[in-house]
């Protein structure tokens, strides 16, 4: 009884703090509590104290009442603490056992967990999300096999930015522990984008065990689910998938499913499957594309022979479409139809050339070379050129050069990539000719030279500075090593600094190459008048990689062309990383002078303040030894 009274009094005191002391002292509940507790005071001294305090409050007036109310609140806090009891469950009933779960530990340290959770939930400070997830998922100690992240996996599958990396790496790393929660969310009949990912994720973990679920998906699911299910079934068990894929590839009403079924036939060994793939190759663009990749991987013994046979004399001799004179509507329709058929044939031939090159047989490659040299249609010749470059077919790129300047951008990039891939050691000899003054003066000559510099710069970036989950620029590690060791590229970059049109590309190359011998050149660029802010920032970053007393003065010179918080921020990042205490007074002097000339806005001044705070910090606890 006393306990209930005290509980009520405790709540009343809180209420009175809001209502005011004058209301409290005359509240009937206060008097009621005193009457209830007073008789018990003799037995329990604590109750005696409460009763006394209530009386003091009742008898107090003016500000004294507020003081007594606060004293009562303090006393009640003590009483409340002394009588605190555990909460009761909101519902009554027996304790039910927890649903069974698979063993999975918590190997992530708090720091690692915070990073991974940030990546999965897109926390404001998270960076390189895909890369973080992939790194943890593929770590040797299976760091991502942590039960704390299980609740985050399904929501992450709905996040387009990371869903793919979650399906590919994280979900398989978590293994069967995550399957029940994925299955709870999966709705095969609904077929949302999330369901497709869930289905793929479950199939990746369970492998052959998922076959019944995949079959169910093919039977009951909407097109997206059917397509994903047949694709996964083809990956898990090509033989089991073949009969289903054969039917779906030709009979399913959804194009997406037909395409997926054609993909699923890649590993199918039967004659029937080869026939279906060849028929699909002659079909619509999407089907042909799927058939091309499946045929490229086909292990059927007669696959090469049948594919070469597709390059018929009629296709070899295919010429340009000749526009016919049409006056009536029927004639115009017929001409349009004929033109469309011709375009389809050209597209078919382009894909066929690609397929022949990918299969990589001598017979196929010779056909492609023949198409490059002799075919009447330019699109076919371009496709053949790209294909030859892609497979590194020797002797082809020399022939390509004359037409290179007018080629589409993609072809130019293919060409540069092809030359590097073909023989990285000779790439400089082969590409340096494009930097001769006469060649640069040609139409599009500057554009090609910029592309070469950018592509070469990529080789220096890839190893050091890849910053997302995707695998770099696709160059092999070997080619990267050869390019990085070839000092002539740095010399070429230095030489290109003299050309205004190439300067930014050259500075980018030199920045990433970080060669010590470029210091003098970077310093001399820093002394030039009229640098653009982009150029100044690149020189800034180049210099930041070296150590030299002249650099501090160069930093200050290079601050002049910069404008705005973003550019100042980039410059300050370099100076912060440079971390030279001698820079602090110089920078402060520059900043004061600048502020006198024109007051910087808060956003502009903030990076400098931050940088100066870092540079001017106490350095007593600097690193020891060495």
């Amino acid at each position: 009884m006393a306990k209930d009274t005290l509980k009520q009094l405790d709540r009343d005191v809180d209420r009175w703090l809001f209502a005011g002391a004058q209301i409290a002292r005359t509240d009937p509940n206060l008097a009621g509590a005193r009457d209830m507790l007073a008789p018990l005071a003799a037995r329990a001294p604590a109750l005696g104290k409460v009763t006394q305090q209530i009386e003091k409050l009742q008898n107090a007036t003016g500000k004294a009442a507020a003081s007594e109310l606060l004293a009562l609140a303090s006393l009640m806090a003590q009483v409340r603490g002394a009588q605190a009891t555990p909460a009761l469950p909101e519902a009554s009933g027996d304790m039910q056992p927890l649903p069974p779960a698979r063993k999975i530990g918590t190997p992530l340290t708090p720091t690692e967990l915070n990073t991974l959770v940030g990546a999965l939930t897109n926390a404001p400070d998270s960076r390189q999300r895909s890369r973080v997830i992939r790194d943890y998922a593929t770590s040797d100690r299976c760091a991502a096999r942590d039960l704390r992240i299980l609740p985050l996996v399904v929501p992450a599958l709905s996040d387009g930015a990371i869903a793919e990396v979650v399906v590919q790496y994280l979900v398989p790393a978590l293994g069967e522990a995550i399957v029940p929660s994925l299955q709870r969310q999966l709705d095969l009949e609904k077929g949302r984008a999330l369901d497709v990912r869930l289905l793929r994720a479950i199939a990746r973990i369970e492998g052959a065990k998922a076959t019944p679920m995949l079959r169910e998906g093919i039977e009951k699911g909407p097109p997206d689910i059917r397509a994903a299910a047949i694709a996964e079934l083809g990956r898990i068990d090509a033989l089991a998938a073949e009969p289903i894929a054969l039917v779906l590839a030709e009979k399913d009403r959804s194009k997406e499913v037909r395409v997926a079924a054609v993909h699923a036939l890649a590993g199918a060994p039967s004659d029937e499957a080869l026939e279906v793939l060849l028929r699909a190759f002659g079909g619509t663009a999407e089907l042909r594309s799927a058939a091309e990749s499946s045929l490229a991987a086909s292990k059927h013994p007669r696959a090469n022979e049948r594919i070469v046979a597709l390059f018929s004399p009629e296709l070899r001799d295919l010429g340009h479409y000749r526009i016919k004179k049409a006056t009536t509507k029927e004639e115009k329709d017929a001409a349009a139809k004929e033109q469309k058929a011709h375009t389809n044939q050209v597209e078919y031939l382009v894909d066929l050339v690609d397929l022949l090159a990918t299969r990589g047989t001598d017979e196929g490659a010779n056909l492609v070379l023949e198409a490059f040299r002799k075919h009447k249609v330019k699109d076919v010749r371009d496709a053949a050129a790209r294909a030859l470059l892609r497979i590194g077919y020797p002797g082809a790129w020399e022939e390509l050069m004359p037409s290179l300047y007018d080629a589409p951008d993609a072809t130019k990039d293919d060409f540069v990539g092809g030359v590097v891939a073909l023989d990285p050691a000779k790439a400089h000899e082969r590409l340096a000719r494009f930097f001769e003054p006469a060649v640069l003066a040609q139409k599009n000559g500057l554009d090609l030279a910029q592309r070469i510099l950018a592509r070469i710069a990529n080789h220096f970036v890839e190893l050091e500075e890849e910053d997302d989950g995707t695998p770099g620029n696709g160059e092999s590690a070997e080619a990267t090593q050869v390019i990085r060791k070839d000092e002539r590229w740095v010399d070429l970059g230095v030489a290109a600094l003299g050309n205004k049109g190439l300067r930014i590309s050259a500075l980018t190359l030199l920045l990433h190459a970080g060669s010590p011998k470029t210091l003098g050149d970077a310093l001399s660029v820093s002394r030039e008048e009229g640098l653009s802010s982009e150029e100044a920032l690149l020189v800034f970053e180049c210099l930041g990689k070296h150590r030299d007393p002249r650099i501090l003065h160069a930093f200050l010179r290079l601050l002049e062309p910069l404008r705005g918080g973003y550019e100042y921020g980039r410059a300050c990042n370099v100076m912060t990383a440079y971390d030279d205490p001698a820079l602090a007074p110089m920078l402060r002097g520059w900043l004061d002078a600048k502020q006198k000339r024109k007051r910087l806005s808060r956003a502009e001044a903030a990076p400098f303040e931050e940088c100066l705070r870092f540079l001017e910090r106490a350095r007593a606890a600097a690193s020891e030894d060495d």
Partner: protein
Amino acid sequence: MAVVVTEQAIAEWAPNEKALLDAKSLLRKGALKRLAKNDDGTLAFGHCDGSGSTPYAVSMDLATGADKPTVRCTCPSRLFPCKHGLALLLAYAQKGALFPVEEPPKDLVQKREKQAQKAAEKKPAPAAAPLRVNKTALAKKAKEQSDALDTLETFLVDLVSGGLGGLSGKSIEAIEHQAKRMADADMKRTAGVLTRLSAYVSGEWLGDEDDDESPGVRDVARGLGEAQEARIAFTLTQLYTTVRRGKKALEGKFAEEGTTQSEADAELESILGKAWRLPDLREAGYWVKNRRFLELAHERSDDEITQFATAIGFLIDLDDGSVVCEVTSLPFHTLPFTKLRASRLGTLEIAEAALYPGDIVNRRVRWDEKVEGVCRERPREAADYEAVHRHGKPLDPVLRALRAQLKNPLHPLDAVFLVAAKKFGDVGGELVLEDEAGMRLVLRNTNDGRLPSTDALRHAAAAFGPGTLAVRLHYDLVTRAIYGDPLALFVGDEHLRLRA
């Protein structure tokens, strides 16, 4: 003794996340070349491709006598260790056993010798001279604090006299002014409580934003919720208690009313802003020797109101079973340059440490990291886990200890304990712990974090079974009852950390 290199340890040594990611990238791409180690495996060295024209020479020395390896690299990075050094550490952790044994480079051996020589020559720091007490300054400070407490009392009385229901934008300004006044009198803890009170009143605590119409002027949140009201009332009670006890402390009257010396000393710190130095704590007897600690849980919290980040490690003393806490607190603006204390993955062997005073369950423990030999972290052993289970208690004594703490309004409303759980189950959707005596505790998270630890416990308990639970018991001001917030579950030699 050589340092043990594990991937977790490397993650803690990394200066920042990017360096670790870059190191992993270097490792994946095979940038490390010609890796080798010396005959006893305490030196590893090699080359790492980088942006320089020649590969960087990178090495690590595990026999440094410290708890971290010495990593050296010829790259110009100012990060320590750099990404190349971290890549070498990762390679060593993963495949160190496969490194070929080679004669280490001469310069490396010389550097090692030089370092050992330096360590041997290092003279012990002279004993700190006793601080001279400036009695006049002390008296002046006591006067200022007494005045500040008087002002605070008047302020609180004025607030309550009219009732908190009549709070306005001006009241918030007045609270903030009062907070400044307390900070000026070196009573920062009280200033913090006042700042928190102003945040509760303005609703900033709940993420309420100012009205666009009146930028810069804060107003009282519209319609205070039950939780907000309870917090405000409790904060006011705390402030009033602070005034009463602060005055007594200034008058030296603690002894008269039966307060323990430990609690009186704690209140000197919490109310009057006394900053304990390690020698002071040693002199006052708040000093323990030869303790073994194992971290139960590690938490980081960011307080947007005070702009401080805090890392707390809850450690169990494997000998006496008490749960203490290791606290690091840093203002936000220093975080780019310094790191909060990382999680402790091994067992700590502490030669001597200060155990802060106070009649609370989780007292603060602190030792001087810079003194050689004071702290050693070794891999955990089966006996450590046995000790953890041995110290798991039933709910009844644990609840009694919490009640004793709650009796003082100045004490925190929560404390971390080790509870021996007989089973976990579900009652109407709520997770419940039951001990050997059949006593039950409802488990509920104190806040809506990104990862509810109750979800993690459901999975862990279902998969591993019951065990010893590290749990934060917290008194909820709204429901006026105690709940458990699970932190970690120990089952056999498994330590399942449940919190993010």
